[in-house]
């Protein structure tokens, strides 16, 4: 028995100490922003600036918590009850999924300007210094002997955007058709050795593990690597056509009603549209919406012809059903189709 007691006592003391310590963290008001993978640095900045402004305006201490992961996975967590005041996800489809579960009003995309996407981005190629494989456009990715790194379109927003970008490029080529597009994607995925579940994991695979000739990446992620993380080791290649990627943001109605944080959450999302918010986005290599900020940072972002998901694919619902749902073209090129 003394043995048992000596085991239990420190454990109990630890539990008590920890239980006391945890609430200390939660002083003041809190808010949770559930976001997708590459926005970690962006929202760290946004949060600290916004919290300071909020304190000046209201005198309240505000702590904004972050959660990051593959966009689909994050949306699933929110549906299952993760209490996010706001979601800032990679694509509208994932916010739609939350809306379908009844936690966000159906008309969410109309509630904020610009389709509820305060910043945009696109898909580019990140290659090693000097572009040794001479990769210029989407069709080069299907060449034998090229190794391509991309996350899994089933779980990652970035992967869905770049899949659709390649598809859209193929359609625009002379004689392009659904069949030729599928052929191109089949060729590209033949060159993919690893499918990570999120964009970040793919970047780590490419940059830290040194695998692959090209990473299909968010433009912001690619610029982060080239300018901040590993200057001089990588280059960005801009394909002739890419896709206008609109990461969307929304207030989670059910949660803010319960936690009484609607005003806070809405102010937070609107902050992203203010000149200051747009500046922060641009500094983290997201394309700002506001013309003045966009002009100021024009030199950062390469010119590229952008197609939009609504024009080419008729919106996310259709694109998802045709390409990423079970039995869609992605499954078909892996020989999974029924």
């Amino acid at each position, binding site marked *: *028995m003394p043995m048992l007691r000596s*085991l239990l006592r420190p454990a109990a003391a630890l539990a008590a100490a920890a239980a006391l310590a945890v609430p200390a963290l939660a002083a003041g008001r809190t808010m949770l922003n559930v976001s997708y993978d590459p926005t970690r640095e962006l929202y760290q900045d946004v949060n600290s600036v916004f919290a300071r402004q909020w304190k000046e305006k209201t005198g309240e201490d505000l702590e904004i*918590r972050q959660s990051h992961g593959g966009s689909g996975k994050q949306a699933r967590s929110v549906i*299952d009850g*993760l209490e996010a005041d706001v979601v800032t996800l990679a694509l509208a489809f994932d916010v739609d999924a939350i809306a379908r579960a009844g936690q966000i009003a159906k008309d969410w995309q109309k509630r904020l300007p610009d389709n509820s996407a305060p910043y945009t981005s696109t898909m580019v190629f990140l290659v090693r210094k000097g572009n040794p494989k001479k990769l210029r456009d989407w069709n080069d990715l299907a060449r034998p002997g090229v190794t391509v790194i991309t996350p899994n379109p089933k779980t990652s927003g970035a992967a869905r955007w770049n899949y659709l970008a390649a598809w859209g490029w193929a359609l625009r080529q002379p004689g392009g058709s659904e069949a030729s597009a599928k052929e191109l994607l089949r060729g590209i995925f033949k060159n993919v050795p690893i499918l990570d579940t999120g964009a*970040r*994991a793919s970047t780590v695979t490419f940059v830290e593990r040194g695998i692959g000739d090209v990473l299909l990446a968010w433009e912001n992620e690619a610029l982060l690597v080239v300018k901040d993380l590993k200057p001089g080791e990588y280059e960005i290649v801009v394909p002739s056509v890419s896709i206008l990627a609109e990461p969307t943001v929304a207030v989670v109605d059910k949660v803010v009603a319960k936690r009484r944080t609607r005003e806070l959450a809405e102010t937070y999302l609107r902050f992203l549209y203010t000149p200051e918010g747009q500046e922060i986005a641009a500094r983290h290599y997201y394309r700002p919406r506001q013309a003045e900020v966009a002009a100021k940072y024009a030199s950062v972002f390469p010119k590229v012809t952008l197609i939009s998901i609504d024009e080419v694919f008729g919106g996310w619902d259709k694109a998802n059903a045709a390409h990423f749902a079970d039995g869609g073209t992605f499954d078909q090129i892996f020989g999974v189709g029924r």
Partner: protein
Amino acid sequence: MPDRLLRFRRPAVTVPESGRSRHLDEPPLVRAALIGAALLFLGLFLVLPLVTVFVEAFAKGLGTYAAALSDPMARAAIRLTLVTAAIVVPVNLVFGVAAAWSVAKFDYRGRHLLTTLIDLPFSVSPVVSGLLFVLLFGANAALGRWLADHDLKVIFALPGIVLATAFVTAPFVARELIPLMRAQGSDEELAALTLGASGWQMFRRISLPKMKWGLLFGVVLCNARAMGEFGAVSVVSGHIRGETTTMPLHVEILYNEYQLAAAFAVASLLTLLAVVTLVVKAVVEWRTHE
């Protein structure tokens, strides 16, 4: 050192070994080859990963290492991991002793089924274990909705992490105790009862001391797994930084933020815990052999 002690005390053990006929021993060359092969295998699969963790952790110097561990997010993760283990381990300790007692000390129909049930969490994939609790407490389940209406958070909060961890680590103490108890038998307990001891007296004075080393090792293993569980916790955590990320999840986050050295720094703490576990085990074995 303990090895030498053992030999010193019982020279009888070594004599037949050296005096064995040649037929009972391999030629020195074969012997060396076998030892070499075993060591190579263990070196590749055990020592190398162990060394790698520490090499990578200190790759960017002591400063980075210290910074990684004193970061508020890291400290919150360490705290959460400790709290989880401090709740889970005592609960599973009580369960483990009760379960082992009920299975090892009595015979009845369904005993094997019960043993299998006790072992079951061990064979459930950690991911599935996490999924179970999402299905049970998720916002789309009846129970989850009721909890949400009463403002009780289970998954994506401490209770969910505790539940998933408790599920995964439930069998550890019992697994250690069952074979021990069966091997030891119940003669002493029966003698104590004959001498007029009450049930509790018998348990405290006879059974507990008999099982204490097995119990200790079971607790240590349970603790190591509770602190290190990844798959199950990953499903129920929600990954809120500084709030619902345990140490293994924090390792993953750092790994995905290009902070490889920091990731390995936190990993090295967990590895130290593993090494302590092994040392405790060695001590336990040594004490039981005494």
